[in-house]
């Protein structure tokens, strides 16, 4: 009896030591150790230390916990071990993900310094402020256009590569490759294409280059037979700062549109810069869609396709009435992924227009409110908006997965 009680105390003591005191000690020692190192040693040595030790420090946590648990009475060891295995994961998710997101919701109801409650004032701001309305408009355009384009081009590439005798992997790799490039790098690549330089400088972006060299006497600053030919002729087309165009009004096409009815009025507001920036994302993610679709298409039983051919269905018919319905669930999964990715899109806008000229997106706006305007309440509100948009999409996925598992 007394013995049982004693072992209970011992278990309790050891579990506290192993699961609370030691992990906390580990956490603090890693944090403080590397913070001090950052200040004390030169950058090269810091990096040299950080890579091996930062990577292996985590093993100290587990082996330390394991050592302590070995002192526990045998019969309670299994339970302790389970907690030791799961504990760090739960703790870190809780501390670094769950707790902060709960706090973000809380902060979204407070003022810019997180001092006083302001009720839903931040949310009212989010839906009435002119800049926020533009941001939300852009986000909706991005969601519709990027997701649709990625899915369609991805389907085409996935379907067509599957029909090749050889070279399938080659074509898929080419389209998939941008996925490995950072959004910052991809934006740099496309900025080079959209580049605008005031006349009479040479246009080095290819779109403006083609524009200004259209016409009989217009050259993009080229040497021809020893003579230097430029485009600074009144009859030549002017280059356009593509990423500065929030509508069509600066383009020659606008003159034709102005006279028209509601359609041209809608067209003239076409946000060119937003569209051009979206292309970057389509370029990056189409390959992912194609690869996933191609895996889905391969899973279609050959008999079904053959039956379609024997019935004399055209290829487009086979595509729309056999392939697409068959991989519908894959399309939904990729669509979900794209919706979430677009909602979190940040880098492209941040390094191209910095959110100016009516190109802003929610994730950039969130960071702007945080680090530029120092308004924690509003920043949190934008974060919550992103979360609220992601939520139904993910819950839908989860429900479908569960249905699939049941079926």
């Amino acid at each position: 009896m007394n013995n049982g009680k004693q072992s209970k105390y011992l278990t309790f003591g050891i579990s506290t030591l192993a699961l609370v005191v030691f992990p906390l000690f580990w956490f603090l020692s890693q944090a403080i150790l590397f913070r001090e190192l950052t200040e004390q040693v030169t950058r090269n040595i810091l990096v040299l230390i950080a890579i091996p030790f930062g990577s292996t420090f985590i093993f100290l946590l587990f082996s330390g916990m394991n050592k302590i648990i070995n002192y526990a009475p045998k019969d309670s060891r299994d339970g302790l071990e389970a907690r030791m295995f799961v504990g760090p994961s739960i703790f870190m998710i809780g501390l670094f993900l769950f707790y902060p997101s709960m706090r973000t919701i809380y902060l979204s109801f407070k003022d810019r310094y997180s001092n006083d409650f302001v009720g839903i004032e931040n949310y009212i701001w989010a839906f009435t402020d002119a800049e926020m309305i533009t941001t939300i408009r852009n986000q909706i355009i991005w969601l519709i256009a990027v997701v649709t384009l990625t899915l369609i081009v991805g389907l085409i590439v996935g379907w067509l590569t599957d029909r090749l005798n050889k070279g399938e992997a080659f074509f898929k790799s080419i389209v998939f490759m941008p996925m490995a490039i950072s959004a910052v790098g991809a934006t740099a690549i496309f900025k080079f294409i959209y580049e605008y330089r005031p006349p009479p400088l040479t246009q080095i972006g290819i779109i403006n280059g083609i524009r200004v060299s259209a016409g009989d006497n217009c050259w993009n600053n080229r040497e021809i037979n020893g003579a230097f030919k430029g485009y600074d002729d009144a009859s030549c087309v002017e280059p356009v700062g593509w990423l500065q165009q929030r509508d069509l009004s600066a383009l020659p096409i606008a003159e034709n549109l102005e006279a028209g009815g509601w359609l041209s009025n809608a067209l003239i507001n076409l946000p060119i810069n937003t569209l051009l920036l979206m292309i970057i994302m389509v370029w990056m993610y189409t390959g992912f869609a194609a690869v996933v679709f191609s895996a889905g298409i391969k899973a279609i039983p050959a008999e079904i396709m053959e039956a379609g051919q024997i019935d004399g269905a055209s290829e487009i018919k086979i595509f729309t009435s056999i392939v697409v319905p068959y991989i519908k669930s894959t399309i939904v999964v990729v669509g979900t992924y794209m919706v979430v990715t677009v909602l979190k899109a940040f880098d492209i806008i941040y390094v191209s227009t910095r959110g100016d000229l009516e190109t802003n997106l929610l994730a950039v706006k969130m960071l702007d409110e945080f680090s530029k305007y120092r308004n924690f309440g509003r920043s949190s509100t934008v974060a919550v908006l992103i979360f609220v948009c992601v939520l139904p999409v993910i819950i839908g996925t989860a429900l479908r997965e569960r249905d699939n598992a049941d079926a």
Partner: protein
Amino acid sequence: MIRSNQKWYDKPITKLILVSIALTWMFPLFGFVLSSFRPGESIKRTSWWDAVYTGNVWSELSLQNYSEVFRAENLDRSFYNSLAVTIPSTIIPITIAAFAAYAFAFMEFKGKNILFLFVVGSMIIPLQMSLIPLVQLFKDGIEIAGIPIIPALDLNGTFVATWFAHTGFGLPLATFLLRDFMMGLPRSVIESAKIDGATNFTTFFRLVLPLSVAGIAAFATFQFLWVYNDFLVANVFLGIYKPENLVVTSHMSQIVVGRFGEAWHLRTSGAVISILVPLGVFFGLQRFFIRGLIGGAVKG
């Protein structure tokens, strides 16, 4: 899979469409990479397609820009910083997740289902949701009713902050994926090891971990590329104003945004350098990467 009727499909029009798509996809890269080898003055004087057309381009190609972006711009320092952020940020979550996944897959304990639901549920949280409080946590710690739970550590601007941040963001997916993978391992082998008296610790290290290499590689590739290409977390936790704290992406963003006006020779060569590592990882481990990506499709 070889289909008997494969020939029926393979028409010239298919190839034509695919070749044009592939060319469209490569085209942005082509002019960009070519320009990275041209001197800064030439890039601005003649457009790259004119230079190709006249043939002048071949004589002016050099590695000058690359040595400049390395030496004058210190891109190498940012590159090492990137590694110091990325490698631990990949290994830490995988280690923690592997332990947790083992417990979820092979151990029985109280509250297992609820805890697993917690892990899966956390996947839907977009990282924007936790940024601000996490910055505050690393700076001021946590206090509940005046009692400090986590002391003020002032971690922002150090590598540790990014490791912990990426660990938090990556853990739910890692735990979920690895548990899925481990559930697919033959249970009888693990059970017989336990009957033979092996502890959980030994079973984990000797048996389950080696058997899960493919699953771990899938997540590792995914996480490595994600962290290496990440700009948001680096921007928030390391900052973009201290040059010694820049990683490759934030350094590139500085160059691209135009700290130096029209420094296209630096922008191109810098971007090409920043692309090399992920491309190498990508082509080397494409199979794993795709698996990790598809698993990650449900992440918030």
